[in-house]
């Protein structure tokens, strides 16, 4: 049982007290017992505060929402801790609603330290610190005065992620995962727990999709037999799973690209993570000023430069095939529709290898990309610079095709020449 009276009854009491001034003593007692009553006296009205950016921020609290929220038990001062310490209403200027929410973010930390630490390490926090006005703060996902317990969320609706990632949610909702959730978690006639957003991306420690292999590992956590199933038919299955993102095959209509990431082979981490290699990042940003994509020589020079300026990093380009958009990444199709034909990638000039980017990691794990010409995958110069990525047939070195043609021509020409020589010599002998 709650130690406090519910806010609805308090409000009723407050209204009655307001209508009966003679009962002032009783009111004072209520305010001492529950200071929220005092707050709500004003904050149920349509109060607004003028902000420095010219906007007006509503100060109204919907009593019904707050009463039903998980935070009703801690009351107003549970979060607004400084209210009692200074003159209220405060005349302190507030720059913007966003700035106010950012400042209030710190209040969440007091009770939710672990979750807040997760958030601080997330791509959301990283974007927020960068000043991205669209990056979510605590109150963007958890409505400030209507915070619900985790059990109350209905993730099938896609909220709160859908608010910012609507097109991705639409793709997800039509995917094998999304349909399983809406159809009661039935996949291939079995009842399974199909994933919602947070199952793959985590609720608070959302990391940049490109940051690591965590998404592939997340897939394999549920699809335990996937590695073995691939090994049954796919040569070098482990290598394929490492160098091709799952959606590249399991989202069959997706547009694909090859990303060549600058990678420190010594530390086994992408270059650029954690504020390292700033000068290399700057070089990558400036290298393709014409915007026509890196050619094989420029790419080779970039790797040399990254090795020189990489603080001892053993720089290689790690190639990976991925889908080009987050929307495509969520259009996971049923197993039978996945790309199964090797020719899709292993034939010459395969479409999958026409779109190439070169990337370096940003400190938060996102990738800073620059486009490259598709011939960087089939140039002899790339034997050195793109040594770690090769798809037989698909990215074959064209120069070797020429050498092979020359070898066959030469091998056939030698017998023809030898036979002709024999005829000439024999004729000469005969003539003599």
């Amino acid at each position, binding site marked *: 049982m709650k130690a406090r009276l519910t806010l609805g009854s308090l409000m009723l009491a407050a209204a009655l007290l307001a209508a009966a001034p003679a009962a002032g003593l009783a009111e004072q007692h209520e305010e001492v017992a529950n200071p929220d009553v005092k707050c709500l006296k004003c904050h149920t009205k349509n109060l607004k505060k003028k902000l420095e950016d010219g906007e007006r921020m509503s100060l109204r609290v919907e009593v019904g929402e707050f009463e039903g929220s998980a935070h009703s038990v801690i009351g107003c001062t549970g979060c607004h801790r400084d209210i009692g310490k200074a003159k209220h209403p405060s005349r302190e200027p507030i720059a913007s609603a966003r700035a106010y929410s950012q400042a209030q973010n710190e209040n969440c930390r007091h009770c939710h330290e672990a979750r807040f630490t997760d958030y601080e390490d997330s791509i959301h926090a990283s974007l927020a610190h960068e000043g991205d006005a669209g990056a979510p703060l605590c109150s963007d996902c958890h409505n400030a005065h209507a915070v619900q317990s985790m059990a109350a969320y209905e993730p099938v609706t896609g909220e709160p992620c859908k608010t910012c990632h609507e097109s991705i949610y639409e793709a997800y909702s039509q995917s094998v995962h999304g349909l399983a959730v809406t159809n009661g978690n039935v996949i291939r006639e079995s009842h399974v727990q199909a994933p919602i957003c947070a199952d793959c991306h985590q609720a608070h420690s959302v990391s940049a999709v490109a940051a690591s292999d965590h998404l592939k590992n997340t897939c394999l956590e549920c699809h335990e037999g996937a590695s073995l199933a691939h090994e049954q*038919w796919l*040569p*070098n299955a*482990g*290598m394929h799973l*490492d160098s091709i993102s799952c959606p590249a095959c399991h989202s069959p209509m997706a547009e694909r690209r090859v990303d060549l990431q600058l990678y420190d*082979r010594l530390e086994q981490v992408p270059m650029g993570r954690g504020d390292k290699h700033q000068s290399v990042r700057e070089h990558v940003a400036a290298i393709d000023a014409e915007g026509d994509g890196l050619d094989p020589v420029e790419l080779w020079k970039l790797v040399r430069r990254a090795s020189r300026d990489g603080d001892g990093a053993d720089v*290689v380009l790690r190639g990976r095939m991925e889908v080009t958009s987050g929307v495509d990444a969520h259009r996971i199709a049923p197993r039978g529709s996945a790309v199964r034909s*090797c*020719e899709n990638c*292993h*034939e*010459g*000039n395969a479409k999958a290898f026409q779109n190439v980017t070169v990337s370096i990691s940003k400190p938060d794990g996102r990738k800073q990309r620059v486009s490259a010409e598709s011939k960087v995958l089939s140039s002899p110069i*790339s*034997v*050195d610079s*793109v*040594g*770690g*990525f*090769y798809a*037989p*047939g698909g990215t*074959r*070195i064209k120069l*070797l095709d020429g*050498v*092979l043609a020359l*070898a*066959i021509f*030469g*091998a*056939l020409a*030698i*017998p023809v020449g*030898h036979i002709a*020589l*024999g005829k000439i*010599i*024999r004729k000469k*002998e005969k003539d003599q």
Partner: protein
Amino acid sequence: MTAQTIHHPSHQVQINKVYLHPLPVRIWHWLNALGFLLLIVTGFQIRYVDLFGLMSFEAAVKLHNWVGFGVIANWFLWLFYYMASDKVTNYHPDLDAKDFFDRYFRQVQYYAWGIFTGAERPHRVHPHDKFNPMQKLTYQFVMFISAPVTFLSGLMMWDVQRFAGLIEMAGGIRVVNTIHVFMFILFVFFIIIHAYMGFLGSKPSSHFKEMFTGYEEPHV
């Protein structure tokens, strides 16, 4: 048995037929020939799946891998036979380089001229010295360099993760593949020339017969 005396009907002479190719060598040779032909066909299919439709890429890779292991095993059969046999002298290097290259160029001259004028062969075959200098240098290179390099690079590509350390030492999978393809090109060249040279015996069928019977066909 190293020689067989036969009666040559047209020349009314007794000719000693030298036993050049023991049975294990002949088995190895023809298995190797079949294996290499299959590897070349499947290799073409893997590399040029957009140009050839003999089989699917997947089938070509699987066949290439299985045949590859067969050819490697066969190479060891060849190696163990020669290591355990006194015939290993056929592959011994010639330490007198000047003498060797003198004989090498005499052999070149023979193929370029003498063979058409009925000149005597500069190299007399013997079970322990059956290769002429051109053959010897070529087979030493093919058997001790090209084949092992091709096998090793093929193994690395067969299981990239198992051989990740070696691949990294070599400079990456693209380097390994380039070496493998370069060896593939050498073998395509070698097999065409090798097959043609097979016709340059005393009769066009002589060398082919030798590789089935083991006995050198008479040069008359």
